[in-house]
């Protein structure tokens, strides 16, 4: 491919790519498999092999391609079949043993396998409707835009994910890829671009929500010839994976956004700092960068202009704190990733002391769409002060897990119940944690708040990176708060005292509480330390570490009090506060639990009512798990005692 030397060259390539793709969807057969990390984890690799094998066996001429993640992770592996002129039909949870039947019924007999089908989608994207003629069997399949999971979604950042082949630049170009870059290079000067982004109201998608255009303006105005661009793809929050999905599914949108930003702020070199736990994302970035360079869309004299921009990838080495901007910069410079006080902000003094613009993956990836469709279009989506869409990684105890992109201002209830399909196994919703281990939880009576940057902060939660973890009645909020705190303290870099010592002391207090040694004073200690950390820590990691504990205390104080006053865990989750009893009128003396007990704490014999020796019990719960459901004789309680015989007695001889 010779380098594109002008906007006209790009337009020509786009036209021919569109024609080719149009031809591809009008003729022949294509099998499309979701091969992002989540798909692969669900077994998409094996499914793909089975499909290739079966196609060969049946002598069917079809192309097999891979795409990124379309978001509905709980239905992986996803397989789409596209036949001449028809929309793609998506089948879900396709495992290798299903492949022969799928191919026989769909491709050979021309029917849809109703019980496995999920929806119909055009190669042009979710929400598209085109003129087409298709078999009657296909028409009964709902479009994606009619499925509950997708109905309320609006996909801007993720518009290409799961639709295009991320390793093929032409598919991106065909869908208006790099058109925004061309527009910027021909029609706009630096100030125009910054102004457009500012007017769109785009706020930093890393979580803090600072106005992106304003930030660009700072870097652009900072004195100096050498400036840098950095993309924060160090998505370290457990429970968030939208940056990974964006890169794995549509890497060129990030590249294009960064190149536009480079033009706007006057930077010639950009770095993408990606965590090393994302090997596939890093590989897709390498492929994308090479392709963009080959096409003259990245590198020297982009599209024949005098603007040059180069991108490099820096792999993280495993440190959560490197998601903090100054720590991230230190890491790129090859040092320990320890944050430093701000100001000076990176826009003034960043990488190697040069002015540096630092944004999250999604912030950059939104930019091409803003430039193409205009600031007003973007500002018209969402709420007045939080424009555009938000992406959440919906996980935990919810039926439809996956990535959802929704207009800002939607309520938590809509996300969890309408999109997520509610709580599985008929359990009760208890809380939703937003913003990961540095965020906060919200209880059921806050489900109707609109989700945007400002309203969440008011309620003690944060937008953060977009993790949204739903927990049900079985989750102990004290234990969950302790879990987040364990994570955050382990990741403290140790540079400042409030974070290093505060986190540790707070964790000790919480540990005492979950182990039944807590006192009401511990709750006061926690609040005091939290205030100290919020005000005194050097960076966001330390300042936000107390967040989950403070939010849990705010909304679930009863649960904390139950632990410290009654030494009881209402959710029966804190092992030290739980006891197991064998119900004497239900035990049949079968001996299954006796054999399963690793501590030898169950006394009994054949046809003898078993008894748990509480002094020996290590509370592993094995007896509870193995007791056959027809007896259901093991009871798990907290803070109450159950009347049982002192020693094993023959079955049937128990009376109170």
């Amino acid at each position: 491919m010779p380098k594109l030397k002008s906007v006209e060259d790009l337009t020509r390539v786009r036209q021919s790519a569109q024609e080719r793709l149009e031809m591809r969807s009008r003729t022949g057969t294509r099998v499309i498999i979701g091969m992002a990390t989540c798909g692969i984890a669900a077994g998409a690799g094996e499914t793909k092999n089975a499909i290739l094998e079966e196609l060969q066996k049946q002598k069917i001429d079809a192309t097999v391609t891979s795409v990124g993640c379309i978001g509905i992770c709980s239905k992986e592996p996803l397989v789409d079949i596209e036949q001449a002129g028809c929309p793609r039909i998506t089948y879900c949870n396709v495992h290798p043993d299903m492949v022969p039947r799928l191919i026989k019924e769909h491709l050979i007999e021309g029917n849809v396998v109703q019980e496995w089908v999920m929806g119909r989608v055009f190669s042009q994207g979710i929400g598209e409707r085109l003129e087409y003629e298709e078999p009657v069997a296909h028409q009964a399949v709902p479009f994606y835009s009619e499925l509950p999971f997708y109905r309320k979604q609006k996909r801007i950042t993720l518009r290409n994910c799961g639709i295009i082949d991320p390793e093929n630049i032409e598919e991106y170009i065909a869908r208006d890829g790099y058109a925004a870059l061309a527009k910027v290079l021909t029609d706009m000067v630096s100030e125009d671009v910054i102004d457009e982004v500012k007017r769109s109201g785009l706020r930093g998608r890393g979580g803090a929500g600072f106005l992106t255009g304003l930030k660009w303006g700072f870097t652009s105005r900072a004195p100096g010839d050498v400036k840098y661009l950095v993309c924060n793809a160090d998505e370290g929050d457990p429970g968030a994976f939208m940056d990974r999905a964006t890169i794995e599914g549509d890497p060129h949108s990030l590249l294009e956004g960064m190149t536009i930003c480079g033009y706007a702020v006057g930077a010639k070199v950009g770095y993408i700092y990606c965590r090393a736990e994302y090997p596939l994302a890093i590989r897709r970035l390498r492929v994308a960068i090479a392709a963009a360079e080959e096409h003259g869309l990245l590198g020297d004299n982009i599209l024949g202009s005098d603007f040059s921009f180069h991108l490099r990838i820096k792999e993280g080495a495993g440190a959560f704190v490197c998601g903090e901007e100054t720590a991230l910069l230190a890491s790129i410079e090859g040092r320990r990733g320890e944050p430093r006080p701000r100001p000076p902000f990176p826009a003034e003094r960043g990488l190697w002391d040069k002015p540096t613009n630092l944004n999250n993956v999604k912030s950059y990836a939104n930019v091409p769409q803003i430039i193409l469709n205009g600031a007003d279009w973007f500002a018209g989506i969402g709420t007045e002060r939080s424009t555009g869409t938000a992406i959440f990684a919906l996980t935990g105890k919810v039926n439809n897990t996956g990535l959802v992109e929704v207009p800002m201002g939607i309520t938590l209830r809509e996300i969890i119940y309408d999109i997520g399909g509610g709580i599985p196994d008929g359990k009760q919703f208890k809380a939703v944690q937003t913003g990961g281990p540095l965020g906060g939880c919200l209880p059921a009576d806050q489900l109707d708040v609109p989700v945007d940057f400002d309203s969440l902060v008011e309620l003690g939660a944060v937008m953060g990176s977009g993790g949204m973890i739903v927990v049900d009645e079985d989750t102990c909020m004290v234990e969950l708060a302790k879990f987040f705190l364990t994570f955050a303290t382990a990741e403290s870099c140790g540079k400042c005292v409030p974070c290093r010592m505060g986190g540790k002391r707070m964790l000790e207090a919480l540990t005492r509480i979950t182990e039944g040694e807590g006192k009401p004073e511990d709750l006061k200690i926690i609040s005091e330390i939290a205030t100290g950390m919020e005000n005194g820590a050097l960076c966001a990691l330390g300042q936000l570490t107390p967040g989950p504990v403070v939010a849990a205390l705010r909304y679930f104080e009863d649960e904390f009090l139950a632990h410290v006053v009654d030494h009881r865990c209402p959710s029966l989750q804190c092992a030290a506060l739980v006891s197991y009893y064998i119900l004497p009128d239900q035990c049949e003396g079968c001996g299954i639990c006796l054999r399963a007990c690793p501590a030898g704490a169950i006394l009994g014999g054949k046809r003898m009512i078993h008894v748990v020796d509480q002094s020996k019990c290590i509370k592993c719960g094995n007896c509870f798990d193995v007791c056959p459901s027809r007896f259901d004789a093991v009871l798990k309680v907290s803070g109450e005692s159950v009347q049982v015989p002192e020693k094993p007695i023959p079955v049937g001889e128990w009376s109170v």
Partner: protein
Amino acid sequence: MVEDLDLTKVEQIIGEVGEEEGGLIPVLQKAQDVFGYLPREVLQSIADRLGVSLTKVYGVVTFYSQFYLERRGKHVLKLCDGTACHVKGAPNLMSAVQEEFGTGPGETTEDGELTVELVYCLGCCALAPVAVLDDQVMGGVRQSVLLDRVKGCIGNGKEVPVA
């Protein structure tokens, strides 16, 4: 344990990565790929070659969780204890592994076959709980399946194909 380390490889690595600014971390990453871990001799050699102190190199190595100063097991099991995995029972998986193989987080079996690591979030939260055995990602992991696969893998020294 005394072993022969081919330190000329350090030179080769630095040549490949280049001596660009901020190159220390990429050099260490590459060196760990080549040597499997980062023994003192290798660190000293990198320090000498890049003209920085061993202290600085050591400081960087111990800061990041991906660098290892000790040799790791032939097979590596990473168990995710990110939030979603935690809620879906990752701690039980870890205790089962610990009971079966006698290795807790960050430890290696005495025979050098298996290293067990606790990691935070591999970004597949929707498929929690997640484990990675020798770079192969497994979602929706059940205890019995996990133990069987690890046993199979350390038993014959080969990767067991996914069911």
